[in-house]
């Protein structure tokens, strides 16, 4: 082995696979996502066949071991983040929907037991879209991802689940749900729920954005779960799950913001006021400059957290800080995007208003899009 190539170097170059993937994802984002996003957002419904098309990207299949029918590639938080970034350029809500089963798979790979992997993963390798999700958020203003109040109690070798989860992506259609709850006095645990057991109700939510994501509230009233539903058969590393989710969310924010920047750059160069393009004015141009600068900082912070996760280094602080940066600057970019288009930005003829509505979710959401 050449020691020189082993030396850890700061590097921002995508490897060959990532470059090829980028081309595929960007094409998909432009040709399959951006073009349907507006109608889908207005209808609040994902277009028929959309998720089946995303299944052709093989996102869930790649990291699953060959023995279970997958491609057996090592799960790569960096590549996952890059994919999320490139897809979200097309539309954040549709992309998050497409990536939600992957988040389920990633978490199962990360913290599940062999028996659970063998039981649930093969169905993700058949080239069809399997709706599966993760559920962490709860409906209160001071919700904190590290302090879920949903409870589970071990009773006679089974578990009884109570409480409610909200903003669950694909909440209505998901055949597999990973639900995070406190387990007795032991701390957080995750449960895999198949279908809709007795005592569980699903209610579709309507939000200001992410309207195609089928966000739903799941309510659990003494829901009985078998012993094997407990993920990994032990307590759940909630912090790790939250951190990996934050990387995914940040990557989605970066992609969406890149969409905003590209769109407004073209617009302000073409829009004429006072006899010249409005981008000839510093008041406009400086907003664009700040957007580009903050976006790049968001991207680098997201990549660093992902890269540390991939290398097995501690990435807790990096994921946290990336989320802090994206929570603030993604929304700023979203609101400036509308501002730069003026009244046109406020009207639905342009997509910036939908990006504004979607980006508001970045600061709020946790526990989805785990890489």
């Amino acid at each position, binding site marked *: 082995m*050449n020691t*020189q*190539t082993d*030396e*850890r*170097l*700061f*590097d*921002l*170059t*995508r*490897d060959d696979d*990532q470059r090829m993937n980028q081309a595929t994802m960007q094409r998909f984002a432009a040709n399959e996502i951006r073009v349907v996003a507006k109608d889908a957002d207005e209808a609040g419904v994902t277009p028929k066949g959309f998720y089946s098309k995303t299944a052709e990207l093989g996102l869930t299949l790649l990291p699953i071991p060959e023995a279970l029918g997958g491609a057996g590639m090592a799960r790569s938080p*960096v590549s996952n983040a*890059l994919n999320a970034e490139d897809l979200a350029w097309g539309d954040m809500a549709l992309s998050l929907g497409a990536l939600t089963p992957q988040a389920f798979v990633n978490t199962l790979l990360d913290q599940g037991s062999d028996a659970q992997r063998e039981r649930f993963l093969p169905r993700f390798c058949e080239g069809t879209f399997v709706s599966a999700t993760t559920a962490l958020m709860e409906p209160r203003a*001071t919700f*904190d*991802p*590290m302090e879920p109040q949903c409870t589970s109690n071990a009773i006679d070798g089974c578990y009884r689940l109570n409480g409610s989860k909200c903003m669950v992506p694909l909440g209505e259609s998901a055949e597999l749900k990973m639900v995070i709850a406190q387990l007795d006095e032991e701390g957080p645990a995750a449960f895999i729920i198949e279908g809709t057991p007795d005592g569980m109700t699903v209610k579709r939510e309507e939000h200001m954005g992410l309207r195609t994501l089928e966000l739903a509230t799941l309510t659990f009233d003494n829901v009985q779960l078998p012993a094997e539903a407990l993920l990994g058969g032990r307590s759940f590393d909630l*912090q790790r799950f939250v951190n990996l989710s934050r990387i995914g969310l940040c990557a989605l924010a970066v992609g969406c913001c890149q969409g905003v*920047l590209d769109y407004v*750059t073209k617009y*302000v*160069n073409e829009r004429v006021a006072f006899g010249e*393009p409005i*981008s*000839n004015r*510093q008041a406009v*141009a*400086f907003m*664009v*400059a*700040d957007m*580009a*600068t*903050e976006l*790049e*900082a*968001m991207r*680098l*912070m997201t*990549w*660093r957290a*992902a*890269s*540390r996760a991939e*290398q097995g*280094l501690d990435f*807790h*602080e*990096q994921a*946290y*800080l*990336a989320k*802090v*940066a994206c*929570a*603030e600057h993604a929304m700023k970019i979203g609101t400036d995007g509308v501002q730069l288009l003026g009244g046109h930005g406020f009207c639905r003829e342009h997509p910036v208003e939908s990006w504004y509505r979607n980006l508001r979710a970045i*600061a709020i959401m*946790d526990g989805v899009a785990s890489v």
Partner: protein
Amino acid sequence: MIQLEISDKHQETYNNARMLAEHMMRPYSRKYDKAEHQYPKEMEEVAKLMAGSRNTSSKGKKPESASAAVKNSNNMGAVIGMQALAWGDLGLFMAFPGSGLGNAAINSVGTPEQRKKYANAYAAMCITEPGTGSDSANISTTAVREGDQWVINGEKIYVSDGERCDTLVVWATLDKSLGKAAIKSFIVEKGTPGCEVTRLEHKMGIRASDTAAISFNDCRVPLSNILGSPEIATDEEGRKKAFGGVMQTFDNTRPAVAAMAVGIARAALDMAREILAEEDIQLNFEKKPSNTSAIEAELYRMESEWEGARLLTLKAAWMADNGQANSKEASMCKAKAGRMGNYVTLRCVELCQSLGYSEAHLLEKFARDSKIVDIFEGTQQIQQLIVARQVLGKSSSELK
């Protein structure tokens, strides 16, 4: 491969510089803040040690660049080392003897003869004039050829190291009516008749760094002291190229100045967190900022801004190390780091209340020192202008 940790070698560079900063700079911070314009002789030893460590590390292992495609070399090493030294004290760092901005100019555009002759010079840069700041293409100092000499006339201000240096690089115009293509730079050795330091500025911060006003009255230098060609380009393309060449130095120096902001903001954050920890305020990066106290939320926010600025700075330097054009990224990091450094240092003073404002700690000094970093080597607004032009694809005549 995407990997954003710095190399072990650069981490060592940082650790060593940080050690010097802590033990050989910090103890003198207040002394030279009070004794403005006094020469900080203690820094000679620090500068020597830094130069020494640079030499041994370059002599040691072969640079990684030898075979690997990706390089982490001098530009990255410089911004990483500078972060640590600026953490120690920005004013004292700028007062390090032996190297000024003029050296960067001579090294980047000088002929081999000039580079050799001035290899050991301590060269300062004279650009700004009383009537010309950010619009550096508008300078009025003149250079006129008389026989085998250039005759320089004019007044320069804000010359960092202007008094302590031994050599000056002076921007002057050969013919103001010909615009920026006629701007050239000249090497003037201190002591040349007609060149005189007329004043030292009294400043809000970085008081250890000397900032001089220098006048040139019929100051004569040999013809060979011009940096670059004496020809004035006549076509548009040539004119652009000529001035662009002078401005290019900034692509290398801006990440370095951004690194200063990163270093000083780190100093403020470290100190503020230390002070606040004594009052039981600590960060664990767990609760969402909106579920924490206002003071914790603000600390998280500042840590996040700091990290963003640091990574942008590394990126710009990394691009330079790998031969990529980085004009946009150099300005991005300077813009972000400049405003971050100023914001963070001022907020740290505010968060620590009387302890921050008091001269009993250095937080108030960091807050004074940081302001200049958002101004020199191109103000915040100049950086925004450059980034905007690049993102929007605008010329300087379209986006003024």
